[in-house]
């Protein structure tokens, strides 16, 4: 197992109270697989992604859990050890390509730095940077460009080129296509898929479930700071067991079907004081008083590789 996350909780200590951004998260990522985290805004999917890198921005703090990367707990690793892993064995690209590059330095400079910090000679790094640019379909002369001279898609490709530098074992992509249009999105997805074929595990975060279905091997669904369902794409799409997953899939608009989009009624809860019991019970059509609003459902394996946290998994089919 490449990555194992056990019982991870991240809280944000804000002025208006403690926000429980993610609680009790457990999952694993295998070598060479593409796992996608879906969920609406504020569901904690980005929080978990950052926590895996041990890069939770303040005022967030990882309050419990383990992140085992190749068997080593990243949360306990000394800073220098962690630094050596970041960028080389695991790396991350971010949602907003407009701000994830330093505006005052050229693209090439930043690419070279990504390699020299891990001990690559500067001349070698320069040569390789140009090669990487070509691999993400950017002309080599973009090396000398400043970020503001590039479009959003081009910048995101630069970020990916930086991430590719060492053929990392794990790439965390935190909504890398959200700020881009669909055509560009597709080309970015192609590049990521190419990385996967070379053996990099892709940890993809998105709120677009249709995008998740396209390329992933497995899907993890988050709701209100909790992991509610994990399974293979087939399991999730053909046989969703959690009412929230079902609702998410049904909410995807279909161009060829008549009728309105089926939205999920209600709003996600305030994570400063999450609802008791199952966090989805307030919006769940199958919730049963006396159980769902009191007892928190256990996150358990119901069929091979298919995990769900629900008292009545797949109840609508019975």
């Amino acid at each position, binding site marked *: 197992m490449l990555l194992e996350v056990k019982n991870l909780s991240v809280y944000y200590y804000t002025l208006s109270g403690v926000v429980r951004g993610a609680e009790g998260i457990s999952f694993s990522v295998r070598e060479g697989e593409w796992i996608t985290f879906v969920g609406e805004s504020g569901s904690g999917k980005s929080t978990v992604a950052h926590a895996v890198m041990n*890069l939770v921005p*303040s005022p967030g703090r990882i309050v419990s859990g383990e992140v085992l990367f190749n068997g080593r707990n990243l949360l306990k690793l000394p800073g220098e050890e962690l630094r*050596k892993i970041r*960028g080389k064995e695991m*790396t991350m*690209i971010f949602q907003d390509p407009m701000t994830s590059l330093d505006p*005052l330095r050229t693209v090439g400079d930043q690419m070279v*730095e*990504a390699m020299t910090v891990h001990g690559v000679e500067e001349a070698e790094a320069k040569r390789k940077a140009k090669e990487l640019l070509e691999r993400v379909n950017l002309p080599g002369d973009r090396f000398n460009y400043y970020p503001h001279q590039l479009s959003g898609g081009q910048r995101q490709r630069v970020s990916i080129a930086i991430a590719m530098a060492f053929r990392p074992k794990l790439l965390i992509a935190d909504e890398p296509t959200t700020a881009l249009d669909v055509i560009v999105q597709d080309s970015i997805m192609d590049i990521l898929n190419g990385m996967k074929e070379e053996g990099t595990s892709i940890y993809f975060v998105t709120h677009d479930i249709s995008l998740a279905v396209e390329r992933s091997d497995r899907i993890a669904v988050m709701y209100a700071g909790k992991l509610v369902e994990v399974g293979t794409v087939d399991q999730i799409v053909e046989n969703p067991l959690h009412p929230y997953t079902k609702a998410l899939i049904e909410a995807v608009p279909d161009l060829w079907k008549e009728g309105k989009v089926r939205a999920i009624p209600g709003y996600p809860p305030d994570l400063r004081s999450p609802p008791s019991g199952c966090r989805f019970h307030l919006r769940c059509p199958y919730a049963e008083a006396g159980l769902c609003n009191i007892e928190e459902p256990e996150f358990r394996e119901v069929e091979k590789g298919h995990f769900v946290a629900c008292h009545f998994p797949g109840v609508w089919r019975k």
Partner: protein
Amino acid sequence: MRLIDYIINPLRERKPGRGLLLFGISVVLTVIIMAIFAPWISPYNPTQIGADVFAPPSSKHLMGTNNLGQDVFSRIIWGSRIILYVVAIATTLSILVGVPLGLLSGYRGGKVDRALSMIMDSIYSFPSLILAIVIAVVLGPSPVNTAIAIAFVYVPTYFRMVRGQTLSLKNQLFVEAARAIGVKDWETMRKYILPNVLPTVLVVFTLSVADAILTEAGLSFLGLSVTPPTPDWGYDLRVGQPFLLDGYWWLAFFPGIMIMLLAMGFAMIGEAINERLSLGTR
């Protein structure tokens, strides 16, 4: 963008603030040239006492002579050296101390940040001139000591600006991205945060130089900077002040106007750059 571009670009373009900048730069440059070429420009020895006391401005003595018969014009020219020297040392010192501490404090956070912020805030809460006077008195009158006193007072200004900027930059994605690719902490500070902070430092620098000039003048007015007969604007201002009532206005007027012009020159450069920087983000 190089730092110097923040001055050159607004000079090239016809945009608001250009006039301010032009005026500021010409005043400051004039004083700097005066200081550099003092031995060649000044018509008389500034410390030479003469029999021709209280001579009004004339073609022989452009700004008249003082109570000791020294040529005021020559003293103004030589005096620019002292004030620039003191202010240069003072601002360099306060930047060298304030900027790294601000970076560290903002980037590290936690206890280091709290301790440093508390110290800086307590310095900041003192009236700056009075604090500078106290330090200058303790250290004894000399230009270097004056510089140290002024530097001490302005460290918190740099510290607070840099710390604030660092705090916001630290949460910028590109800084996080730098950490995600394994850049060392101090390299992140030096290569990713510092260059983005420098424009702010430049503005604080030009604005606080103006303040530092007034502080220097204030200290030497109180006799805490140079010892006579060294020519110094603040000191000459004080020497001339009692003679104002006798109608010998030129003794105090010229040093006073020079202090004002120089301070204004720097303030205008700072204002112009400030305006440009905020124009860019608007």
